[in-house]
């Protein structure tokens, strides 16, 4: 069930879908007005990552670095040493894998104030297929010291995350998606680093999700509610640092945790939750997401079903294990 307090931060506009990358582009252009230190770099994908919105408004503070991600990451580090706040964008696969060493050594190790905002993450990127679907990006970024990792669930949260990232002094990775996701929150929602949000409340199980899958988790919870099974649904946009207390508290109450993510079950949100619970309160954890496989071409909805984390799979995981 949804309590009165939570209801205040939830969107009333049913069926409205906006991609988190759209929200990113618009928020950047908005922040560019108030903060002249913000500079934006992209690797020939500005129309897709939506940094083109900023580029059009502030051409002097936008740098297209061509198809050269490694150079972009290190150059952003150089800009950060000059007091700028670089937002760098490309697809998640390139930001985290092709340019992994640059992110680690040029940005993270010296703790430079670079915001890596990568789009087209997860298999829900869809038709482009495995080569362009990042299913390890959170695992990689989470394991690099000094980097905070955020994965917003909808356009509203994405905007709040970008605002927070601009204010936060340090490197961070923001995981954005290609496809439109239903709007969950309204503008009074507040994002806080290291805090999760419990959207639904129940005692049978805990579903924890981040990013694109949160609306799937909510749909599953509503299905279960109709069957008389009430669950906690936690949206964990701040994957690193993670909200240890919220996870431990909910797990202690329900005794069963289901994690849902559009990412490999190795190293992502599911692993992060297991790390918390194994130390604080060991309970059974079932990790839904990409099961140690590469992605595939297809439309997002059919991929989510084929890879086993659609709303039916989430509901079944609860039903079969309580």
């Amino acid at each position, binding site marked *: 069930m949804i309590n009165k307090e939570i209801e205040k931060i939830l969107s009333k506009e049913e069926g409205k879908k906006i991609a988190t990358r759209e929200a990113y582009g618009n928020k950047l252009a908005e922040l560019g007005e108030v903060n002249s230190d913000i*500079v934006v770099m992209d690797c020939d994908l500005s129309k897709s990552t939506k940094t083109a919105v900023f580029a059009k408004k502030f051409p*002097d*503070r936008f*740098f297209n*670095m*061509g198809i*050269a991600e*490694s*150079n*972009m*990451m*290190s*150059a*952003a*580090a*150089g*800009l*950060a*040493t*000059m*007091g*700028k706040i*670089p937002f760098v964008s490309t697809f998640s696969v390139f930001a985290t894998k092709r340019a992994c*060493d*640059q992110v680690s*050594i*040029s940005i993270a*190790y*010296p*703790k430079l104030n670079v915001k890596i905002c990568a789009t087209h993450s997860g298999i829900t990127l869809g038709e482009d297929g495995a080569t362009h679907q990042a299913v390890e990006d959170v695992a990689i970024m989470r394991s690099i010291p000094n980097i905070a990792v955020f994965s917003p669930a909808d356009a509203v949260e994405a905007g709040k995350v970008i605002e927070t990232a601009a204010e936060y002094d340090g490197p961070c990775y923001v995981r954005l998606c290609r496809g439109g996701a239903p709007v969950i929150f309204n503008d009074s929602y507040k994002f806080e680093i290291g805090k999760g949000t419990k959207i639904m409340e129940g005692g049978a199980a805990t579903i924890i999700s981040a990013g694109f899958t949160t609306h799937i988790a909510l749909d599953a919870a509503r299905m279960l509610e109709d069957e008389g099974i009430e669950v906690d649904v936690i949206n964990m946009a701040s994957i690193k640092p993670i909200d240890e207390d919220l996870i431990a508290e909910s797990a202690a109450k329900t005794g069963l945790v289901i994690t849902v993510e559009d990412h490999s079950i190795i190293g992502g949100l599911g692993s992060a939750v297991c790390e918390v619970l194994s130390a604080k309160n060991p309970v059974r954890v079932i990790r839904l997401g990409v099961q140690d496989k590469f992605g595939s071409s297809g439309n997002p909805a059919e991929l989510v079903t084929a890879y086993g984390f659609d709303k039916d799979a989430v509901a079944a995981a609860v039903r079969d294990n309580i």
Partner: protein
Amino acid sequence: MDGKLKTLLKEKARDIRVDIIEMLCAAGSGHPGGSLSMADIFSYLYFSGELNIDAKDPAKKDRDRVVLSKGHACPVLYAALAEKGYFDKSELKTLRKYGSMLQGHPDMNKTPGVDMTTGSLGQGLSCAVGMAIGAKLDRSGIKVFAILGDGECNEGQIWEAAMAARHYRLDNLIAIVDLNGLQIDGFTKDVMDTTPMADKWRSFGWKTFEIDGHDLEIIDETIKKAKSVKDSPVCIVANTTKGKGVTFMEDVCDWHGNAPCEEEKDKAICDICNIDAS
């Protein structure tokens, strides 16, 4: 260049070389060859007065930047910084030891005067590109110097940065390539032939000079010219001798990454102090 300055720069190059040998001997590991090859250029950069830097205010905003992209050659940078007064010379003996401000590769957060953390080859030039773009945004007249290895130019990222620097017409960026002809596994022509080095930079649209990287007069002349180039980045291909100044290290590949023992240290210092006599 006036005689007095030339004498000073020669003395500083000698002191830097002695420091390099002493700190590497104390560390028991590290990279003498590519540090010694850059000693004359570093003497020039830090003591000619051509760079706008202040050892008393290492973080001052409008300073020129130096990025040691070939980060393993940090002994030459540390020696120059210590000689310049960024920190006490006694720190040099802590090189590579736990808790030291002098890490095995440059760390901007630990060492005063280090403008960028480097060590993974290929990244420093890109960082310098970012600094140069930042300086342009601020309409600041500072110059950014990036020191590259010739082996380092095997890295694809160097050429990504070379493209970007030209694309953005970064005439405030000066790259110096330490063309000493050796890398860890052997001669560069055998490991990965990068000849003709200068033509590569020219073809990427950089104003390129080829010089003797041990001739202080030519270094002076070239850096002054480089600072006045407009509309394109500048590359100075500096022909050098790896291990320069220590006869038994010169052009010997094994001295890329091995530290001298006590006996070798004494012999090396003796050689260095005899440079001017020869």
